[in-house]
């Protein structure tokens, strides 16, 4: 299966939210990583077919999704960001309703709902009103809803928002288990969520894909650019102004130890560190934060 996104552009008035994106997605987990406002949600909405594009096209196995229409939506599972649902519905009823909208009916729908509730660990609250669920439980309900029709294209917009660590792990395992023969598109800014499970990472910045590759490939980009330096506390500010500063931790030698992503060695005494995805993120978005702050 191949989901081809060609020259997709979305403008809101004058503002370009997604700028000429070209990607071809294949089976596996594809993580979409980017700062707030970088256009992840907009891109995913267009892939989910709920938002029209200004330019470009999306096709599944060579056929335009607008022409495929309901056949495309039939294989689609979508969890929107800030997933909204009917507060007065019981959990069970909401899923049955979604089943009906997805074209599943009768006994099969009931069975599917029970399975999905079990999968996301909500089997005990199936008779509770959605309004009475905690934020994380609601998010899990959103995940269950997306999986009802056993989709081969799964679009998840920040699915782990609000999940506790245990649920996060459960969710990660679920994604691993599902990823074998389907396309999973997963938007997030939580790097740790995807470092183990993503087969491919797309970095989005200001509506464009600025980096695209497997985790290793991305790590290679920042290889030799990640440094660890011990500094005094009063030096911290000048470092932060000059470089993209990552994790700050206690130091045994001086006041603090800072992690810096930089093309040049920031200090004589700086030691090269082993890069992780956080550093990749920082490499691309470190400056953005500063530009935004200065505005």
């Amino acid at each position: 299966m191949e989901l081809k996104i060609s020259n997709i552009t979305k403008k809101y008035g004058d503002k370009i939210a997604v700028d000429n994106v070209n990607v071809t997605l294949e089976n596996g987990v594809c993580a979409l990583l980017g700062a707030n406002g970088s256009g992840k949600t907009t891109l995913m909405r267009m892939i989910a077919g709920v938002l029209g594009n200004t330019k470009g096209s999306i096709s599944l196995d060579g056929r335009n999704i607008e022409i495929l229409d309901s056949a495309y939506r039939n294989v689609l599972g979508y969890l929107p960001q800030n997933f909204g649902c009917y507060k007065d519905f019981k959990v069970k009823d909401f899923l049955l309703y979604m089943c009906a909208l997805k074209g599943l009916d009768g006994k099969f729908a009931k069975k599917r709902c029970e399975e999905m509730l079990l999968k996301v660990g909500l089997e005990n609250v199936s008779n509770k009103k959605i309004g009475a669920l905690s934020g994380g439980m609601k998010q899990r309900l959103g995940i269950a809803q997306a999986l009802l029709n056993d989709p081969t294209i799964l679009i998840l917009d920040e699915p782990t928002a609000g999940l506790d660590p245990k649920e996060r792990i459960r969710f990660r395992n679920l994604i691993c288990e599902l990823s074998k023969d389907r396309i999973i598109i997963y938007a997030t800014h939580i790097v740790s969520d995807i470092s183990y499970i993503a087969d491919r990472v797309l970095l989005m910045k200001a509506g464009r894909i600025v980096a695209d590759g497997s985790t290793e490939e991305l790590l290679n980009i920042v290889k030799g650019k990640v440094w660890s330096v011990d500094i005094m506390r009063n030096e911290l500010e000048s470092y932060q102004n000059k470089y993209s500063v990552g994790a700050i931790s206690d130091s045994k030698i001086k006041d603090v130890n800072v992690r810096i992503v930089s093309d040049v060695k920031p200090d004589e005494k700086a030691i090269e560190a082993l890069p992780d995805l956080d550093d990749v993120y920082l490499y691309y978005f470190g400056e953005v934060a500063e530009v935004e702050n200065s505005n």
Partner: protein
Amino acid sequence: MKTVIKYELIKIFNSRLASVVLLIAFVISVGVSGFNAIQYKTGEKGYYKINDMNGNQFPDVFVSAENIDTLVSQLNEFESREEIYETDAGIVNTYVGITFKGKYDIDKSALLRAVSNGEITNAEYHKALSDYQSAPCIKKEYLADYFELYYPVSCYSSISNNIESTLQWLIEDDLGNLYETSKLAKVIREEQALNKGVVFTYDYGWSLGEEMLSYLVPLYLIVVVFGLCNMFSGEYSLGTDSLVKSTFRGRKKFVLMKYSTAIIYCFICSVAIIVICYLPSLVLLGFSGYNVGTVYTNIEMLLLKFVSLLIGGISISTVVMFFSSLFNKLIYVLFASVITAVIPYILLYIPNLDFTSQIILHLLPFNLSFDSYWLFDNYISIDIIEIFCFIPAVVFNVISSVTVYFMTVKSFSKHRIMN
């Protein structure tokens, strides 16, 4: 499809605004309808007390061109008998407002003329009126017999007078337009019905139910508007629109299912309002009686009311749902719906509207629910069993509903997703 519609209905009844309005409407309509029927039953309202019939069931009376003369002479003979009148003022006073022709019935217009000519004083005029109120009336034991003669004769003569004056007017004002043609058709039908003969009977239960309904139609429309105003804007404000749009059924089907839900909702509300209006009257005042009019029976009338309510409700709901798909804010939806509903209603009061504009106005959603005016008086007057009279309304509504449906699909699809 069935499951979706079921849950869509649940959504309506779950909505706080809708359920509050439904509850209030229910309490008001049951209260008004029940109270009114009780008042008639106890005689605080209406022309006579049921009890005054001495518990007698009023018999059906057949009137036709052939037996009317006999009935008139029987009535005259009956009215000339002294012993049928009540002379005890104490009893008579409880019959204030009775409209049966009593022995000392007075000519009010003659009295008025007398006042304006200065022949009598104002005080004398009022005394005459109060004398009238305590004038002797028919004794209880003769009431049923009297009614049996009086009612058919007076109904027959009022209908035939009406036919005559209409014919007279049609001859004088010979324009031959659609309005006059339909008027003539009605008159001819009525004349035929009278010649063939009709059955008059006591029908308070039915006529009161019908009267109740005509008061409560606005309440029905309010319930429809408030129940459906959230259809799409509710999805927008909850942020469920994106979820729904991404499912197999898609936008067009989803909107279609919303429309189907609206039709079912209107059906439920029409049945409810009819039951609420008719049931107390029928239970308290009796089911007996039909065919009081010349053109349609009570059951037919009820069916007509129901169809008008349903079609009117559906056509209003398409408008409401279109606005609901346009706006996020409920208040805008309500405002726009009320404006579109009420404007055609107000336009009806423009003097000297030509017949075609009148028909068009009457076909618009809000007015359509107030059935009988255009269906019978001004437009076509044929048995509702002959479905013809519904054709314009149905055709008009199907066309406008389909158009509004596509507009709704479009505005729902284009609506900006917020979550």
